[in-house]
């Protein structure tokens, strides 16, 4: 017990000194490797697929295939981020094909496909496009190696592009939830699109929200979570909240601005072992410098009472910031893309809001690092260095999309 307390003290003091240090990014080899009394595993790399002519963005996997998208322009001449890469991931990722998304406006190539998702039935693949005029592109995945374009949805209500797009099935109907950029002609907004006939997508509703923009959503059990940046996380009833909300008319249940705002993405954790649905994990994205620096914590929000969500814990990596999440809910493991901090894996089972005084930050929140919740890291110290945009837990593997290098296949934590 004495040894544990001493160890915790050492960890706490190291964490504090790291937090109080310079704002400049730490050496990647130092990121997230603060020694803990509990051994922190290193995720084993089992394969890598290299893309260096474009910057990679999000990743999704299903069955034997993974799909990565692309971001911005790279190189000289600039190669736009208008491509979906298709990987055979039965072994190390092998590039088998790619799809170039055609111009939404003739002569103005798509620059970014910032998101990608396969529908729950595996039939559709959907990507949003940026910048103006914006769209979502809907592909038939009958042949998962040869996505066939079914439809393009665009609208005068999404004039500056669609930043993210989440697919969710509600009462048997597939919907796309679009986070739409603000533009000179309209503010940032949420738009919901009905994909029950994917060849004829139809607009269900849109609502202006976000300060200064909406970045992402999470939909589960009839609740809609919106990541509204400095307006925080807002929980809406769209049929499961008992407030009379619908898809057409979401009704706000509660909201919380997590510490420092910048709410970027959300994951509502359902623990299949305990049946607990207590925590939502909020990703914060502070201003960063692509490929070299990032900032932003993971915030743990207790939504036992969704009308009064409260932040109870956080996780920080000195010199790096979090991005997108994926979860192994059965094992209670949160995989977080952490840009220059690689991949960080947290044990999120049990009570995250109760901790000792030594495990608390000055503002009273529990520090998951001091609670020894960091169980593994991955892709640190690579050369060339990584900048991990997204992670996808696929059961027997974890895939990480790396803006700088392409896709990585990692062995998951199996405790």
């Amino acid at each position, binding site marked *: 017990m004495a040894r544990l307390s001493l160890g915790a003290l050492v960890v706490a003091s190291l964490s504090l000194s790291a937090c109080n240090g310079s*704002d400049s990014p730490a050496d990647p080899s130092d990121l997230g490797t603060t020694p803990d009394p509990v051994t922190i595993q290193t995720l084993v790399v089992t394969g890598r697929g290299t893309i260096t002519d474009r*910057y990679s963005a999000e990743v999704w996997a299903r069955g034997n295939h993974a799909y990565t998208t692309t971001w*911005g*322009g*790279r*190189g*000289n*001449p*600039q190669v*736009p981020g208008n491509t979906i890469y298709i990987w055979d991931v039965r072994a190390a990722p092998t590039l088998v094909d790619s799809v170039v998304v055609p111009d939404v406006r003739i*002569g*103005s*190539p798509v*620059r970014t496909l910032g998101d990608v998702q396969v529908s729950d039935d595996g039939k559709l693949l959907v990507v949003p496009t*940026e*910048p103006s005029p914006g769209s979502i592109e809907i592909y038939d995945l009958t042949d998962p190696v040869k996505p066939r374009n079914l439809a393009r949805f665009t609208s005068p209500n999404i004039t500056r592009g669609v*930043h993210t797009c989440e697919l969710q099935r509600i009462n048997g109907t597939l919907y796309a939830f679009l986070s739409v*950029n*603000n533009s*000179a002609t309209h*503010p940032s907004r949420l738009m919901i699109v009905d994909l029950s006939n994917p060849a004829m997508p139809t607009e269900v509703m849109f609502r202006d929200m976000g*300060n*200064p923009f909406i*970045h992402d959503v999470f939909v589960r059990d009839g609740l809609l979570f919106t990541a509204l*940046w*400095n307006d925080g996380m807002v929980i809406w009833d769209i049929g499961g909240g008992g407030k009379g909300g619908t898809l057409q008319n979401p009704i706000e249940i509660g909201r919380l601005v997590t510490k*420092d*705002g910048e709410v*970027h993405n959300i994951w509502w954790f359902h623990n299949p072992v305990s049946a607990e649905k207590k925590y939502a994990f909020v990703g914060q*994205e*502070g*201003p*960063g*410098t*692509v*490929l*070299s*620096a990032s*900032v932003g914590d993971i915030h743990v929000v207790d939504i036992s009472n969704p009308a009064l969500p409260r932040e109870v814990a956080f996780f920080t990596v000195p010199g790096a910031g979090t991005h997108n999440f994926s979860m192994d809910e059965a094992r209670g493991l949160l995989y977080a893309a952490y840009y220059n901090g690689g991949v960080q894996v947290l044990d999120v089972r049990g009570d995250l809001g109760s901790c000792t005084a030594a495990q608390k930050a000055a503002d009273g929140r529990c520090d998951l690092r001091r609670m020894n919740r960091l169980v593994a890291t991955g892709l640190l110290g690579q050369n*060339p*260095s990584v*900048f991990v945009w997204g992670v996808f837990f696929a059961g027997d593997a974890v895939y990480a999309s790396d803006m*700088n290098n392409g896709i990585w296949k990692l062995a998951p934590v199996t405790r």
Partner: protein
Amino acid sequence: MRPPETAPVRRDCAPVGGNPTSVRHNRASLWCNGAPSQRNGAPSQCNGAPLWRNGAPSQCNGAPLQARLVVAFLIAAGPAGLGAQVMNQMAHHADSARRLSLGIMAVGVASRATPGALGTDVTEGYLTQPMLFAGAQTRNRRLQALATINFEGLTLARGEINLGVYGEGFSDRRHPHTYAHELMLGALGSSGFGTQGSLFAGKGFVPFGSDDPMTRPFVKYPVNHHHAQILERVLVVGALHARGVSLEAARFNGDEPEHPKDWPNSTRALDSWTARLTIKPREGLEFSGSAARLISPEFAAGGGLDQNKHSATARFVRARGPLRYALVEWARTQETRTARTFFEFSSVLAEGQAAVGPWRLSLRLERTERPEEDRLTNPYRSARPLLDFSILGVTRWDVVTMHADTPAARWRWFSATPFVEGAWLRPRALARPTAIDPEVFFGASRLWMLSAGVRMHGGDMRTRFGRYGAALVPAR
């Protein structure tokens, strides 16, 4: 009370703007393109800082011709209908030249950038800085009005090639300014104990940093324009001057213009502040320090990163001797939110102008850091506002610029000054790895810009941009 200036008006105003041009002499250094307060060794000592001085008769009698040329210029470059208004003003100007003033300027320039973005050489020409100036003041000079209409929205819609310069959605091209560049109304007062005060309001220049580049010797703007000046804001600015020391403070809207027709967002009114202290130990020499807090300049609707800006300058101007003008400045912009600083960009710049016979030779040395933003399909345009507030890197620009003005050709109230200007630029990425490495983006580690053209002025010109009322009172 200072004695009124009686020295005769010479037609070769000492150039700060780069060209010896014939313009109306102004005791308060406001309208003459040069350093009139020192011309002929007779310091201009105008209590109440009048906007301009009624010049020699030959200049005043030029009003009808001015009117014709101004109208011709406006018809060529501006919206129809404005010309008639100017004609009316000009007619009024002829009646009471002490109360009204008009001036025009424009620079016809051809430039070559070697290489430009993505390694492609750029050669192009246009009319840059086309502007119409107007001013009015009461006979006692207690009330003043200033207007500057900028037509770059018509002539520089794609931006002016200007490697290194960035801002308002442009990179390596200078963005066009707004049509309503400056519309200010103000009042001046004096305590009788040598203290003067003023209060101005409207849209115009924020009291921060150094003078706007368009009144300095070079045609191409320095990289630090968005670090060292704040302009085109709706502001209320107060100024006090006593014994060679002036203090200015202002509240203004933080949002940057989004396009030439843009007006500041009403929801952002007066959300930002600045203060500038200027010490003038003797005529022609001044030191200033300024600080500003801008709320969300890049996100016009609000909610973006804020900026803390600081500037320190030393400026020297004189009408005689080989060295006519010098400026040394340091500026820094920090991008912040909730007391956290995410990005910091600094700049050091030194420039000067020497008279060599009838020629004016100028040199500028600059080292400025700038953010790299996500470029669009047009490599000179960037996503604005930034998505997710991320930048693609930080580039440090080392720039050496040389400029030579030939003697001006004059025709009554109009002057034309041919010039050549060359710049050597070396951009380097400060953070690695970087999503924009300038050596890759330009395909070269060293860049060149060559420009030649004619700077044209007519009528009443402003010596300085960025100061109002009591802040323009000479040293002592």
